[in-house]
């Protein structure tokens, strides 16, 4: 069986031709990552999930998070559901672990920016003004 895929590992977007027989043969890839992507995409497609979660007392009402590695596609909506129920409190640093070892995949969900508290934001502005 033959299949065509567009590689999404990097912005180059190589057009891949895949022959699925006893082995999976990949053509059109410019790097090893492309071959691995094609094999993964055929056998076990995965995506990084990036979304936001609620944060109490933060500069903004939500903070962006991501999975530390791509997760199987079928886990995306269950994980979104789980994350919609979570609320953390500011301040948090970048890389703060929101969920650990999700679905026993050895993958975590972490914040992708620091979030200071509302009060702290105000204070920095006042200091700036007085200087």
């Amino acid at each position, binding site marked *: 069986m033959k299949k065509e895929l*567009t590689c999404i590992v990097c912005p180059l977007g190589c057009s891949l031709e895949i022959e699925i027989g006893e082995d999976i043969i990949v053509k059109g890839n410019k790097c090893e990552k492309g071959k691995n992507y094609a094999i993964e995409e055929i056998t076990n497609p995965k995506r990084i999930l990036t979304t936001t979660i609620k944060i109490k007392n933060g500069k903004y009402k939500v903070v962006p998070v991501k999975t530390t590695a791509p997760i199987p596609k079928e886990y995306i909506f269950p994980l979104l559901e789980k994350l919609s129920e979570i609320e953390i409190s500011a301040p948090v640093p970048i890389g703060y672990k929101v969920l650990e070892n999700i679905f026993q995949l050895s993958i975590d969900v972490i914040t992708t*920016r620091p979030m200071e508290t509302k009060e702290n934001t105000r204070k920095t502005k006042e200091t700036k003004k007085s200087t």
Partner: protein
Amino acid sequence: MQKEVDIVIIGGGPAGLSASISSAERGKSILILERNEELGGVLNQCIHPGFGLIYFKEELTGPEYAYRFIKEIEKYPNIEVWLETMVVDITNEKEITAINKDGIWKIKTKAIIFSTGCRERTRGNLQIPGTRPAGIYTAGTAQRLVNIEGYLPGEKILILGSGDIGLIMARRLKWEGAEVIGVIEKLPYPGGLTRNLVQCLEDYNIPLYLKHTVVEILGKDRVEGVYIAPVDDYGNPITDNKKFIECDTLLLSAGLIPENDLLENINIPLDPRTQGPYVDQYLSTLKEGIFSCGNSLLVNDLVDYVTLQGILAGKSAVRYINNEINIEKRSHIEIDGNLRLVVPQYLSYPILEDITFYFRVKEPQKSAILTLKDNDKRIKEWRFPVVKPAEMIVIKVKPEFLRYMENPKFSMEG
């Protein structure tokens, strides 16, 4: 109030951040003027991954990419940052007028780097007829609402334009529980990067209607629906074949406009093809001491290129102040064939270092050949298996191929 620094950088997004570091490490005093309440520009709302593959050789989200630079500039005591500060005017003598909570500032400087980014094309730019209800957003505004402010802009969403922000918002809104009806594109090919078409639309079976456009918006207080119609080969809608689509929200992802009003005020010539200023390989505009980088120079599809342009502009500004740029001759670069734009548009001689050229093509093309000529003499060729309007072409050329050309010209043929 008065202020004096070596270099003023207007805009604290990815271009301005990297420009500040590359000029600060060469010992100059830098002032970044940023109108938002934090640094990082549009990266802060681009919470999706895909950033940094070229520059950092790893995949980061927008906020993570910005954070690396924001952390880095904290190391430099010679970089000063003014947030919530809006530049309202510049003069030919490089005096900047800026406004913030402290009042009106007059800032004197030796060099200015423009890293002001882009605005999005709005309904007004697109001239879509109909009523004026709530529920019409540019894709970037919707992105800010969802990813920073924490609001969902609507429940039943149609997206006009297949630019990257629109594609990314299609997936984002789907993830947040909205119904995404589809993406409408006037051109016969998609506007966004291939990986976004695959990951944002195909993954979620969101349809893409090519050669279609929105011809009318309906609704009194809130959008109630739109009419879409196919377009002919000249891009004119065939309204006899219009079709009603029920939706409560219309997102516009129909292109970006480099923000260069301040340059226009002092008559710095802009290239109608890029809508950014004409620059040479130093990213100097045609007025010396004023530099441009990032999306206000040309609309980039990867932030990594924006960073590299910022680094170059910062370095060039320092060289300019140190009197290290001595231009003997300047040639305008022509383009031909399938090429839509080139940056830089000028070569300043002598050429001492490799030059990175950025191109966009007019139409998708397979097995394309990019040729550099001087008059009609072929100098060098580059071959590409496929070129697409959405994907910038980036090449690096060594100085020996560019020495004292009379009429440099790049052309792309099949």
